[in-house]
């Protein structure tokens, strides 16, 4: 019977992976000391710490040692077997701490095993809800916790539930919104794939809270593994009497089905999602009536995001008060972010609300990969805004991000360095929203399209100063007159970059220059004769034969032919290509 587990991973990417070597060494030592039946050694693919040499993690003590050397083997084993002794000079002390509530089980339990989930305390919350709490106390507890919807808008969860509970209707529904669509975001997917039962438990509790007897998972079809895991988990839950009739012996009944989203971003908007489940075109509808009053098939319906639901069992198990201690005044608990972009360690980060953007980006994720300074961080996906480097000390919560012209959103976070152009970035995001606009309402449909036209014009060097006024004018009408969140927020990337980086727009417009060197129409490549060694590598690599000349007479770029792909710039070993 193992009492301890030691995880091993070489986190230094710059050298050959030494994990196997160290693993063998450790095993040999354990066998020699006859401890191999007491301590299990596991090689892992990711240990959550990066570029710290050989990293060893001792479980269940949760002690992590970094930059471990071969001779440390004995020390580590001794410490592991001792009663709480820690090797101070090796122990890993993270600068900023992640706080894992939503991701509590991810990577720890077998997501396909309900037994694993139960043995880690799963479904106890449901038992408590059905057994002692009852509807009112349950909603009270959620109210005390202060949890707000993690889908983006941050509406208090207890209020949603309460509205639906107060509705007098024989039929009610709960829906788990798993139509995660922000580019680069995969928080919900990770939870669905890594800990499906926590979401199911949350959904069952939500159903009980409002008196629903039918629930749906609305999962985008692009998440086949998530669908598979949820399917399995639902079946297991039925087998264990956690779904179906008389759940855990109580009079409460609930059936859960899965509906697949066909890939429309707007179907993450709750009224469009409802239309989609009803088999209609996925377009938003005016609210009120809110779904909690009149939702799916016209019945009271609560729609909660995956992350919200994954929080629910913990809140019930540990109490609303406990949860409310975490976070800020207005935003309680944690938030999972999918940090991507120019960051060194991209991945999922779960922090207590109130941690600063700088802590997330610099301390947890290790700053930029290029080593260049951070220029800005984009939160909230295509509906969010760009936050400049000087505001990175802002504590993350719903209100603060909104004040900066961004939003919490579902948790996408993209880090940008000075190679990112602040006209190009909003162009990308707006392009996404224009593509994904359902086309129902005029301000979003046409406004987004027109704004994109102006951005293209500016990035191609055809902009005029008046264009910025037009952009602001359309943005305002989109924000105020669009029907749903997609249209209301689609202009955020443009407005926030206009707010913080207007200079960069003006560079494009007035000087026809892209400071980040991103907008291809505004870049010229040329060969610096002094530096050119006439090796011809640019000549052979140019995909469009836009470099002329030869080893004798030297090379030059034919500007008319050049497609600004940057290949010559990348392959030149002598920095003889000028990009400006």
């Amino acid at each position, binding site marked *: 019977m193992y009492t301890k587990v030691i995880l091993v991973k070489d986190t230094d990417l710059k050298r050959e992976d030494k994990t196997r070597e160290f693993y063998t060494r450790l095993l040999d030592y354990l066998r020699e000391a006859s401890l191999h039946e007491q301590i299990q050694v596991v090689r892992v693919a990711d240990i959550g710490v990066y570029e710290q040499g050989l990293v060893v993690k001792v479980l269940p003590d949760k002690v992590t040692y970094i930059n471990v050397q071969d001779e440390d083997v004995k020390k580590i084993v001794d410490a592991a077997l001792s009663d709480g002794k820690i090797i101070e000079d090796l122990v890993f002390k993270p600068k900023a701490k992640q706080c894992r509530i939503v991701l509590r089980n991810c990577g720890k339990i077998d997501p396909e095993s309900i037994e694993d989930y139960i043995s880690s305390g799963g479904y106890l919350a449901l038992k408590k809800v059905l057994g002692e709490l009852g509807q009112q106390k349950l909603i009270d507890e959620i109210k005390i916790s202060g949890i707000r919807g993690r889908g983006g808008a941050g509406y208090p969860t207890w209020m949603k539930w309460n509205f639906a509970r107060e509705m007098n209707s024989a039929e009610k529904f709960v829906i788990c919104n798993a139509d995660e669509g922000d580019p680069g975001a995969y928080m919900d997917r990770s939870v669905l794939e890594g800990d499906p039962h926590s979401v199911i438990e949350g959904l069952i509790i939500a159903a009980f809270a409002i008196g629903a007897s039918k629930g749906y998972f609305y999962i985008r079809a692009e998440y086949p593994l998530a669908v598979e895991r949820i399917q399995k988990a639902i079946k297991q839950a039925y087998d264990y009497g956690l779904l179906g009739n008389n759940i855990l012996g109580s009079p409460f009944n609930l059936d859960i089905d899965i509906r697949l989203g066909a890939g429309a971003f707007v179907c993450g908007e709750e009224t469009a999602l409802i239309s989609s489940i009803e088999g209609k075109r996925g377009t938003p509808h005016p609210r009120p009536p809110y779904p909690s009053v009149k939702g799916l098939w016209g019945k009271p319906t609560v729609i909660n995001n995956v992350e919200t639901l994954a929080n629910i069992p913990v809140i019930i198990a540990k109490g609303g008060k406990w949860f409310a201690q975490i976070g800020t005044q207005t935003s309680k608990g944690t938030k999972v972010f999918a940090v991507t972009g120019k960051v060194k360690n991209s991945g999922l980060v779960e922090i207590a609300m109130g941690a600063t953007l700088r802590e997330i980006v610099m301390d947890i994720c290790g700053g930029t990969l290029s080593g260049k300074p951070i220029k800005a961080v984009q939160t909230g996906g295509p509906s969010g805004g760009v936050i400049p480097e000087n505001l990175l000390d802002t504590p993350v919560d719903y209100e603060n991000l909104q004040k900066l012209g961004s939003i919490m959103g579902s948790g996408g976070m993209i880090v940008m360095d000075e190679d990112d152009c602040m006209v190009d970035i909003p162009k990308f995001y707006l392009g996404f929203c224009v593509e994904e606009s359902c*086309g129902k309402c005029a301000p979003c*449909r046409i406004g987004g399209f027109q704004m994109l*036209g102006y951005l293209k014009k500016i990035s191609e060097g055809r902009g005029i100063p008046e264009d910025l006024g037009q952009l602001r*004018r359309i943005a*305002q*009408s989109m924000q105020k007159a669009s*029907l749903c969140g997609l249209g209301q927020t689609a202009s955020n990337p443009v407005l926030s970059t206009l707010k913080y980086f207007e200079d960069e727009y003006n560079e494009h417009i007035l000087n026809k220059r892209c400071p980040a060197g991103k907008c291809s129409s505004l870049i010229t490549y040329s060969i610096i004769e002094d530096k050119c060694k006439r090796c011809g590598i640019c000549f052979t690599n140019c995909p469009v034969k836009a470099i002329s000349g030869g080893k004798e007479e030297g090379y030059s770029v034919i500007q008319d032919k050049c497609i600004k792909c940057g290949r010559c710039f990348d392959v030149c070993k002598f920095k003889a290509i000028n990009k400006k």
Partner: protein
Amino acid sequence: MAKIIKAKINGILLRVEEGTTILEAAKRVQIKIPTLCKHPDLPPSASCGICIVKNRGSHKMLRSCCTPLDEGMDIVTHDPEIVEIRRTVIELILSNHPNDCLKCARNNQCELQELTADFGIKEESFPQFLRDLPIDTSTRAVDLDPKKCILCGRCVHVCQELQDVWALSFLERGMKTRISPAGDIQLADSPCVKCGQCSAHCPTGAFVEQDHTAQAWKGLQDPDKYCVVQIAPAVRVSIGEAFGYTGKNFTKKLYALLRRLGFHAVFDTSFAADVTIMEEASEFEERLLHGNRPLPLITSCCPSWVDFMEKFYPDMIEHFSSCKSPHEILGVLSKTYYAEKNKIDPSKIFMVSIMPCTSKKYEITRNDEMSASGFQDIDAVLCTRELVRMIKQAGIDFDSLPDEECDSILGEYAGAGVIFGSTGGVMEAALRTAHYFVTGRELKNVKFESVRGLKGVKETEIEIDGKKLRIAIAHGLGNVEYILNKVRDAKLNNKEMPYHFIEVMACPGGCVGGGGQPYMVTDELRIKRAQALYEDDDQKQVRCSHQNPYIKRIYKEFLGKPLSEKSEKLLHTNYKARPVYVK
């Protein structure tokens, strides 16, 4: 009792019933909030984004078309910011619209054009973007030009919810979104029944009636042609709207007008409606007393309804009256009876119907029986809106036109004939005559109030000779399902039939609310138009079709009796099941 909400709009305190939208509430304090997508007939689709207002204290703007006024709200409907946003949205819409108003059928009658003028927009401030989409003229009744569509969704709502036809839907998304039948097929291959309600509700020129005025002018200017015209009951009470009159009957002015346009003979479809009643009431009598064909009898004078039935309820064919629609009857009688009597070569007769309807444009070539005279019985159909254009083109001063009478033998109508234009009218007219046919006695009171009015489904019982007849009336095809499902259910389970007689009109309100009628119809207007028809009926000496001396004469001289061989040949048609989707 609905809860009463107290709130302010532009500082004016008002009380409204709970659930009243801000847009509606604002009207009560004399404020018109502009909108392009909300139509009084339809639930809000909230797609144009122009009706936004502010609630003081909130940074969000609300769409007044779909937001109910709430207790304590303090609504601002117009301020510089709101007006600026509305203007921007209108300009955005214009950037995706051809703006070729001069060449548009809706010129001067377009809601977008009106708003553009109201907002003083004089230039296109955003770059134009238009997709090159073809015009669909396949139905021969209503044309769809998707380029002019602003995607307000009215037509889709009308087609799906009000009419239950589902010919129209949104296709694609984002800037590519457009209106089309599902599967991107042509309208003629879709479930479309050509009712034209899309065109009556469209705020722009995306849906317009197929224009046949050129054809009509050509006929009128052809010296070889003998031009005959008929006007439908519902046209006389709506045409005035183009000249500033509502709910007024212009029958006699229209007769004068049509002569001035150059028609040689002016007839009235109401006369043919009397013929329809003679035939239909006889059919009813046959079915009721002799049981040779099953009850209920279902009326067939609406071609959209016929098309709908053939597509969606072919199992009801045996219940359908085989009687043609009145204008077809008048067409065939003109080219036979009238031609014979006046020794006119029927091949020279050019027959035009002025109708409140787009569907009749399709009906005239529906099947071979529409050429029962040996020629196409009707040569052209103009809807009310087209006639208005012809009046203006001819430079006729409508207001000062004198009254004239229509031409003899196919013109004089009984009161029963003219109420055809309103929902319940055919039923009422038929009951007046059926009563006589069944009992041999005349009615003392010819008014059947219970079949009148705008309730979607009207069910009532009427006693004839001690026998209680169960009657159902539906208008707006969306109301048909309820009635016909009851009939289907009875048929399937061999139960007693729920009804003896059913009237259906495709358009809400019946023909007064027809798809070819003047724009911006509301229930209020439908009631006024219908009222004017009922007044015409009230003022008539002869109220029942069988009492009309001209009807007696035509049967005596030409047709014999109702359902005679000749009547069957000329006045009746048959039906066949049609596929909902052609391909």
